[in-house]
């Protein structure tokens, strides 16, 4: 089982890391310092490890790092910063959709993918799009509300870029 140098594009940064074939994208991202990607069930049940892989939300625990080579990867931290949060991140805070916070990055990634496809989703569409994400603090009501608030905010303020990736220039903490 020989490691190989894998090129990963994460939140606009390029990383070249030596990885064994059995390392998941989840492990690789966390080791690179993208600890906003959470390790939950490692079975595809909980969605805590969700990232955008070429724009599609996927469970990074079920993707091998080698399979993600040269794909565009976006994590929750790539959507906004503390000073310039993404409307979804702001709405989750404002709506009280965050309790322990462990599921939040995954929910925001799934919600981002939904709003990219459907700018004005119905409640059913929101619940369907988030059905691969589990919140054990039972905050689904507020989470749905947060997505609705973000959708309204984005449509009110169309100048907000679809993806803030290009504006994030400081590397995430933990990057060597």
């Amino acid at each position, binding site marked *: *089982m020989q490691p190989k140098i894998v090129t990963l594009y994460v939140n606009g940064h390029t990383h070249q890391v030596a990885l*064994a*074939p*059995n*390392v*998941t994208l989840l492990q690789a991202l966390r080791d690179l310092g993208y600890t906003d990607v959470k390790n939950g069930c*490692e*079975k*595809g*049940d909980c*969605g805590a490890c*969700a990232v955008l*892989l070429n724009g*599609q*939300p*996927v*469970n990074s*625990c*079920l*993707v*091998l790092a*080698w*399979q993600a080579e040269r794909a565009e990867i976006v994590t929750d931290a790539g959507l906004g910063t503390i000073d310039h949060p993404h409307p979804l991140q702001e709405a989750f805070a404002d709506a009280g959709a965050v309790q322990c916070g462990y599921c939040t990055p995954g929910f925001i990634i*799934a919600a981002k993918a939904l709003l990219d496809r459907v700018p004005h989703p119905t409640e*059913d*569409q929101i*619940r*369907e*799009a988030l*059905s*691969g*994400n589990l919140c054990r603090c039972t905050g689904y009501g507020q989470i749905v509300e947060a997505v609705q608030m973000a959708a309204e905010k984005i449509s009110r303020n169309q100048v907000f870029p679809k993806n803030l990736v290009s504006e994030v220039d400081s590397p995430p903490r933990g990057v060597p």
Partner: protein
Amino acid sequence: MLPEFELLMPHTLPEALDMLAQGGPDVVPLAGGTALLVDMRGGHLHHLPESAGEYTREPFGKVKCLMDVSHLAASSEPFGKVECRREDGHVAVGGGVAIAELVDSPLVARYGPVLGQAARRFANPLVRNRATLGGNLAYASPAADTAPPLLVLGAEVELASAAGTRRVSLEDFLLGVHQTARRPDELLTAVRWPVPAPQAAGAYRKLALRQATAVSVVSVAVMVELSHLPESSQSFGKVECRQARIALGAVAPRPIRAHAAEEVLRGQPLTPEAIAEAARLAVEATCCIDDLRGSAAYRQRVTEVLVRRALTDVATFPPSRKLGSFREGNS
């Protein structure tokens, strides 16, 4: 933590087939990984018959090498594409097509809506973006969501190897729990089914313990060629069944057809009585087990109910009825 394995990364379909030819049974194709990687983490992969039809179960320790085929969907056109080949009257879906694409595909909505309904109930949206049609069938779970709809559509699978391509009907392909007719040097490259007759209508029903991310307790697909399409529930009992196909999932070691139930409907008006009789006969085709999702007795009862509901769907609703909204309800 995943156990150690080698990982082959072919860039083209021919390269992948060469790797399979050289590697033999030691090389396991990896597509979306949504089932395989989960099994490997648990260390209990029951996979890979030495030869077709052999019901031996290999322990996971023997799987030493995976071959990634998830990249091939983008680089190899037919492998990653849904297409309708009008010339030979078939719809073909590449083995590398993600389940999420089946949900959105206009061709599937038109020529195999029953498959689209099943795709909407498949796991959850995140899994659907990775899981592939070929992977779902080749993994051969008795509860594979795409198998019953494809059985009623009369689908066959294309198995490619370095030596050539052969077609096998899906019914002959699925042999048992994680057992298929795929030879170790073959890759499931496509699934195809004949364009259904204009008066054909299908329906899919699935009972699971929750709405999303749930393995079927029982799943049922039906496809009926009708004398004419029902216009509303008022026409219940006035539509005649020319030919019916009924497939059941999670009630036997492999997804099965309920042939006796299909026969009893042939040439009959789809009345509540005829439907009830077919549903009763469908139960006789099952060979259910007790597991953590339900008892054998419960599965038999649910099979009868779901077959009745699915047949009632096609007997009463115009096929254009929008199916598959999230709030449609479990089963």
